[in-house]
């Protein structure tokens, strides 16, 4: 039902180390390279952001736990390159040694001169949608249980397990956004209304820290029922 990345509320992780206050954050050169390579590869349009999250989450749980953060990104990128046919398993295995230098860039490649514009534009997720909003701020709603993709068994979803089957209230409507559960699997963007929904901590946790604490999640309309 759940995947290893879905760790909200988990016990046993120990303290947070907040000591890195400088900018840019501390990073090994390979980590910085992994970040930039991921952004440049993503800019080819071979996959979308939901697919890249799906690929990282689909890493074997043992690898996910063992990998450092950017290693997960590298694993997801390598798997997507093969899945989309952009790179063969053989080319990956030989680390590109058998390939000659290319004479010209692929039309999909992100060119250096385009970087500022591409980063400044980003990739907005809001869309026109035929799905009408059925909730308004203040409405009581209930999240689906279990937290799961209803289109693809075991597929990508953005409803964390800790917030499944919980009663909350709508704080705001963000308009219609691309539905990750569909887009991550190449099934289309299927935009629908997205809401910020507030849950009392006591609705989610056995031992909430404070009676008035809340957790807010952004949830798509199809994750919600009237409560």
């Amino acid at each position, binding site marked *: 039902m759940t995947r290893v*990345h879905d760790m*909200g*509320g988990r016990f046993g*992780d*120990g303290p*947070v*180390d*907040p000591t890195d206050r400088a*900018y840019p*954050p*501390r990073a090994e050169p390979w980590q910085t390279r*992994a970040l930039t*390579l991921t952004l*440049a*590869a993503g*800019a080819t349009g071979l996959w979308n952001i939901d697919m890249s999250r799906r690929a990282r989450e*689909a*890493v074997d749980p043992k690898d996910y736990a063992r990998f450092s953060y950017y*290693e997960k990104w*590298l694993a997801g990128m*390598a*798997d997507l*390159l093969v899945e989309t046919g*952009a790179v063969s398993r053989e080319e*990956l*295995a030989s*680390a*590109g040694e058998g390939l000659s*230098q*290319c004479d010209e860039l*692929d039309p999909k*490649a992100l*060119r*250096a001169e385009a*970087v500022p514009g591409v*980063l*400044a*534009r*980003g*990739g*907005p*997720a*809001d869309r026109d949608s035929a799905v009408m909003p059925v909730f308004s701020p203040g409405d009581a709603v209930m999240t689906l249980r279990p937290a799961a993709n209803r289109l*693809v068994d075991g597929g990508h979803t953005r409803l*964390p397990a*800790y917030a499944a089957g919980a009663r909350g209230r709508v704080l705001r409507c963000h308009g219609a*956004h691309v539905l*990750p559960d569909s887009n991550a699997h190449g099934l289309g963007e299927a935009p629908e209304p*997205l809401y*910020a929904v*507030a849950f009392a901590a006591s609705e989610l946790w056995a031992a909430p*820290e404070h009676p008035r*604490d*809340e*957790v*807010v*999640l*952004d*949830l*798509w309309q199809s994750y919600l029922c009237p409560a």
Partner: protein
Amino acid sequence: MAHDDPDHPHALLPPDPALRVRALETVLTRKGLIDPAALDAIIDTYQNRVGPKNGAAVVARAWSDPGFRADLLDDATAAVSGMGFHGRQGEHIVAVENTPEVHNMVVCTLCSCYPWPLLGVPPAWYKSDAYRARAVREPRKVLAEFGVTLPEETAVRVWDSTAEVRYLVLPMRPKGTDGLSEEALAALVGRDAMIGTALASAPEGAA
């Protein structure tokens, strides 16, 4: 589409992460899918152009200009875009204001969503399992690890960034800052205060 490939292609890469990056970069460059100069341009963007100073300028302006503060709370995407801050991982921004009644704090339990145009790339702790796992369940214990203790009457509202909306915490303006310029105010606003794991700093000389 097969969801779980038991024979993951990434396992074909070398075990050392640095060699793994190099292998991927070599393959992608030779296939013409990567312009190496573009990688340098991306690094330059996030090391020299975009970072927490952007967010601090937004907060300082909101503290100084009530009209801007109202615009920011109403439509932060438009308000910060007007200051030139927009783009990747900040396409949809919502600003949430700390008050004596509510302290806001941001996490992404499922991955590491973060408002890049305002804060740059995230620190390691934001992406750590410990922060992702614990911030939603025990935010006050996590805040204590950052040296923050809230008054009993202040509720904590944790925002779990599950969609493409990115949250900016607007910290409370510290006492003793009347008359300070926006530039001087911005210097009091650290990155962590805009994630909600710190408060804005008091000015030098203030109690």
